[in-house]
């Protein structure tokens, strides 16, 4: 074994340790009885895992995050699928316009999107200020590109233009063609795009913090409040939620990669994007 080989092995080992250690520390915290001034906890228990989710503030926050994800996803599906479909079978210029708009949530920080929305809503639609619907719409807006890319890719892969032409030749109404022919053909794309939208909504912090704050406390907001409050915070509960959220996001990501085996690179990329901005 050459020195070169040894060096690269050591480099990878250090990198792996760097990635594993914070997770390990959080996990140990979630099963520790007491963790005072020592390198390892003095005892282990599963009590935090069973008790955290029965606390009303935690189950409430989890429920609110799930509702937010579901509503944002519903908005995105209703808006994106017809647009992507029409772009592929009828008018490609729709695609170019949507791709241009999709650069906004891709490149511009979500704090900035939140700040802009706050300014618009404050004067123009005061009734929406701080409301759940504003947060849901904003979350749907930043997450829609993931669904659009996934749906458009699967429409192109399924050759939806030819499919709908064939359906039209057989006398099917465009709506019938969409529901009976196209949708079954692109189910995979819709599912992986939806998982990305849900992952974004479950983990989204900036918009929730700016737009609704304490009025609609999602799980990331609860975690942030626990973390920053100097008094009365419960590190074990926070550790449980940390590992739980991580497990959820990782499961979603694994599912997306598994669904898009052929185009794994693109989906991995899209997914990393959802978690990066948090």
């Amino acid at each position: 074994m050459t020195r070169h080989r040894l060096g690269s092995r050591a480099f990878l080992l250090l990198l792996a340790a760097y990635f594993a250690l914070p997770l390990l520390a959080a996990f140990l915290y979630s099963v520790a009885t007491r963790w005072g001034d020592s390198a390892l906890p003095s005892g282990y228990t599963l009590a935090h895992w069973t008790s955290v989710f029965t606390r009303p503030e935690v189950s409430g926050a989890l429920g609110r995050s799930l509702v937010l994800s579901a509503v944002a996803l519903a908005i995105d599906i209703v808006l994106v699928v017809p647009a992507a479909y029409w772009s592929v079978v009828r008018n490609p210029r729709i695609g170019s316009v949507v791709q241009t708009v999709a650069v906004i949530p891709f490149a511009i920080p979500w704090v900035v999107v939140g700040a802009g929305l706050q300014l618009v809503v404050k004067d123009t639609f005061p009734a929406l200020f701080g409301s759940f619907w504003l947060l849901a719409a904003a979350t749907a807006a930043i997450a829609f590109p993931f669904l659009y890319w996934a749906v458009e890719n699967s429409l192109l892969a399924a050759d939806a233009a030819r499919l709908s032409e064939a359906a039209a030749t057989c006398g099917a109404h465009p709506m019938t063609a969409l529901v009976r022919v196209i949708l079954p053909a692109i189910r995979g794309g819709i599912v992986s795009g939806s998982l990305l939208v849900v992952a974004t909504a479950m983990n989204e912090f900036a918009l929730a913090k700016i737009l609704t704050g304490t009025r609609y406390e999602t799980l990331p907001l609860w975690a942030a409040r626990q973390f920053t409050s100097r008094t009365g915070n419960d590190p074990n509960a926070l550790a449980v939620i940390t590992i739980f959220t991580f497990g959820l996001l990782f499961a979603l990501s694994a599912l997306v990669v598994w669904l898009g085996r052929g185009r794994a690179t693109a989906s991995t990329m899209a997914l990393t994007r959802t978690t990066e901005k948090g």
Partner: protein
Amino acid sequence: MTSPAPSRAVAEGALPDRAPRPRAASRPSPLPRFGRLVADWLPALPLLAFALLLLVLPAARLLNDTFALRAGGYGLGNVQKVIDNPVDREAIRNSLSLGALQATLSALFGVPAAWLISRMRVAGRATWLALMNVAANFAGIGLAFAMVALIGSTGMLTHLLGVSFPATSSFGGVNIAYLYFNVPMFVLLTLPAMAVLRDDWWEAAQVCHATRWQFWRRIGVPVLAPFTAAGWLLIFTWTIGIYAVTYALASGPQSVKLITLQIGSTLESSVFGLERAAVLSVLLMILAVVSTVLYRLAIRRATRWL
């Protein structure tokens, strides 16, 4: 369908920069011109209106508020106020150096890691990809908590090694936390590019009696440089815009000052007036636009070899 060349996947997955697709069935329509226009766009109108209202309008509003003066009219007064504010100057300086440092460190660790991973056998590569995915998924408040549990003043590693790490709310501490997801991100971004550098080229270079150094100097670095530059730009832009981890780690009064935190606290307190948030937001928008344009140039240059 054949699988696309990997680096095209980078270009496509990352930014909507795809080749024009074959024109869809254009059937002659009996409708008059306006009717056809409506029929061409109608199913996309809800999405376009939604995006206009929730993404374009806020951006326009921020631009307007940046230059609109409280006394009426437009000018650079708000911008001047931000430039004159020492806290804002510090935040801008910190955010820019954080972005540049993170992008550089990510490239420094990410390029060798991606190279080594790309040359592994299938099992090793799958394991490492999973690990990178794990790390990239571990962001937000949870990461902040884990970092404090690991290297905080009573953290696990602090006790284990008996050393004191930089405070997690300091510039150094935030850097350690950010690298956790930026390095895997960079690896995932550049991994497909590593396949561009084909093994045949190294063999061809050896046939010509090239040394390893000459191979990297003349072939490896020139081919990989644009991909690295593209990854650098994305990490730079995204790092400057991160809010969740930053809020958890550094929202205290003694912590490092960063642009996103200043925007967030201004919106919540409104003591300084919201123009300040608008000016800082527009600064982030300008940075995002510039680096997106540069990113596209880099990708165009990078895909020359395909």
